[in-house]
């Protein structure tokens, strides 16, 4: 029976087109992550100050950065500062000419991500950033390097002139500080461009994909009415029980197989091209202010789980609308409405902003929320919105399944 349900979905022109479009989104995501087209791709600046791209550039960057592999302790930070200072003192480092500067930059490529953290740590405030800050540092202390992050945060949270002062309650402020303080140091560094690109571009498949898959989900129930096959369907032995359950199963199975298949292809294509190294680096290398004290691979697992829960929920909701309204058109708009509501509501009112951060989009674009301070206090306990969204949408999906079943099996055919 399951085979026939899937055949109903993919037998139509629309079903085949949806599958092609979904595959196109996977290809697009892989292209974006391997080229860094939407952010910063992996580029190697060679000895002549020229830019190189492609696989050889990636391998050179990998080799260069892995020479700096290790914990960012006093020794490593000192070495970085010393090397940075040495390069700056060379004629190329002093030159105002672009090509000479590029050559100097090329010598720094091995420790650029560490230099970036130093810039952030020693910038003047929590919300400021100075690209040349590391160049002005001659002596660095490990304790200060890590403590600056917490100090800047506290200054920002308790600055009466800043919006953050009133934005968070004292409990929330303490929670944020607690998260910062509990981040394990020293950080471990190695080349991690693969994981960075994986996370950065990992939201396209869950968020764009569900809009496409919505077309398949929308017809699961309503097409019975559209094709006028409902009368025969409901007059059969299993139409009002097992066959309805199989429809739900087909929808959820389809989402599961396509989502995990797509994400697996995307993960292996990205990491296979850019390198698997750096899985154990903390996400703060790329999202310095993040409240999440997790490594790159942990962030990716979390992104995968969030995306899956978000997709499952939206699929179940689309199926429910399809069963309830008997209309594919109304059902197919469901994911679009849910996805685009936040853009309209954001900034209208504080309480609406909270609602917006609790929408399923938060799950679909997990990486975009890695650096935000979206918090909710429930009975005096502070949660990051994502931490609440995961159980919330899991429960809602589980609740929706019997509701869909009940809704469809009780249909009367006039």
């Amino acid at each position: 029976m399951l085979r026939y349900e899937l055949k109903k979905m993919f037998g139509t022109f629309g079903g085949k087109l949806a599958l092609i479009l979904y595959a196109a989104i996977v290809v697009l995501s892989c292209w974006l992550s391997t080229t860094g087209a939407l952010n910063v791709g992996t580029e190697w600046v060679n000895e002549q100050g020229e830019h190189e791209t492609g696989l050889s550039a990636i391998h050179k960057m990998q080799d260069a950065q892995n020479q700096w592999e290790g914990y960012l302790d006093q020794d490593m930070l000192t070495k970085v500062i010393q090397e940075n200072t040495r390069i700056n003192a060379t004629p190329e480092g002093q030159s105002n000419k672009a090509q000479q500067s590029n050559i100097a930059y090329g010598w720094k490529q091995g420790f650029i991500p560490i230099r970036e953290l130093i810039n952030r740590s020693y910038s003047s405030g929590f919300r400021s950033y100075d690209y040349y800050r590391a160049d002005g540092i001659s002596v660095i202390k490990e304790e200060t390097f890590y403590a600056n992050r917490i100090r800047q945060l506290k200054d920002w949270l308790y600055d009466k002139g800043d919006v953050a002062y009133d934005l968070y309650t004292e409990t929330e402020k303490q929670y944020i500080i607690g998260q910062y303080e509990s981040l394990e140091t020293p950080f471990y560094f190695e080349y991690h461009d693969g994981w960075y690109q994986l996370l950065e571009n990992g939201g396209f498949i869950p968020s764009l994909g569900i809009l496409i898959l919505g077309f398949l989900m929308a017809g699961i129930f309503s097409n019975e009415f559209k094709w006028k096959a409902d009368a025969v369907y409901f007059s059969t032995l299993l139409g009002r029980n097992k066959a309805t359950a199989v429809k739900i199963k087909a929808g959820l199975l389809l989402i599961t197989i396509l989502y995990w298949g797509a994400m697996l292809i995307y993960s292996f294509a990205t990491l296979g091209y850019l390198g698997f190294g750096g899985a154990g680096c903390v996400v703060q290398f790329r999202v310095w202010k993040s409240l999440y004290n997790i490594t790159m691979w942990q962030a990716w697992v979390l992104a995968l789980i969030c995306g899956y829960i978000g997709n499952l929920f939206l699929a179940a909701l689309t199926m429910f609308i399809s069963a309830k309204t008997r209309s594919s058109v109304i059902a197919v708009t469901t994911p679009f409405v849910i996805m685009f509501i936040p853009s309209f509501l954001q900034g209208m009112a504080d309480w609406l902003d909270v609602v917006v951060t609790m929408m399923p989009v938060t799950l679909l674009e997990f990486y975009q929320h890695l650096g935000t301070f979206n918090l909710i206090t429930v009975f005096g306990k502070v949660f990051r919105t994502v931490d609440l969204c995961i159980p919330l949408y899991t429960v809602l999906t589980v609740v929706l399944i019997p509701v869909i079943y009940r809704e469809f099996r009780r249909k009367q055919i006039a």
Partner: protein
Amino acid sequence: MDLRISNLTKDFDGFKAVNDFSFSMDCGVYGLLGINGAGKTTLMRMLTTLMKPTSGQITWDGEDVFAMDGKYRMLLGYLPQDFGYYPDFSVYDYLMYIAALKGIRPAVARQRVKELLKQVGLVKARNKKMKTLSGGMKRRAGIAQAMLNDPKILILDEPTAGLDPSERIRFRNLIRELSEDRIVLLSTHIVSDIEYIANEILLMKDGQHVISGTSEDIINSMPESVWISRISKSSIDVCLKRFKVSNVKTVPGGAELRIISRNQPTENAIQVDATLEDVFLYYFGERAGEEDAEV
């Protein structure tokens, strides 16, 4: 084998599509005759559990069919009036899917589908997509799906509507073949279909059970007589307004009318035997002639 309808009513916002309908059926072919909007489809939808009645009851061997749920639907074969299908399924896949919905195991279903494809003459079209079939072939696929579970109750709603004469005859013969050892309830507004196949005829009007019995019983129930009268062309309109006319046949110099009347309508009128079509016109009046021109 007793399918009993007791005081069945279906009310749609004050409009009674089926109104206090009672009837019982055992083995045989029953023809449900009525004009469009008489409530035939609503009655059939309740008999197939697709729609719950507002009041009244349908029982199978004394047990409420809605309470029986799957146990009742297991006995059921249904070909709806507006027969829908999955357009991109082949005939074979369509039948196999419906067999799965009817809880028939795949091995048994394969054999049954093979037999039915042969019986309805669709063996050559088994791999054709449903959407590419002609109207008659779709109807035959429809009857095949209804027969998959060898149902005790076969409900066919307007099975010959839209078919050309040869397809209609073929379909009627097919229904006759399939009617052994089961209840077949066949709704139509095409009198000739019923006349040929049904053992018992039910006339339905405005949601109510008007009369039932064999073709002869129903013909004999008509309190008026049928007359053939030859008239001039100029008198046709006058006669059509004055009498119930079941047929107008053009003849040289005028027309030959088939008139239903208690008394001799014209001087030259000759009394003839009534047919079911005359009875249909008698009970359903002018609307039968206007809306159901296929009689």
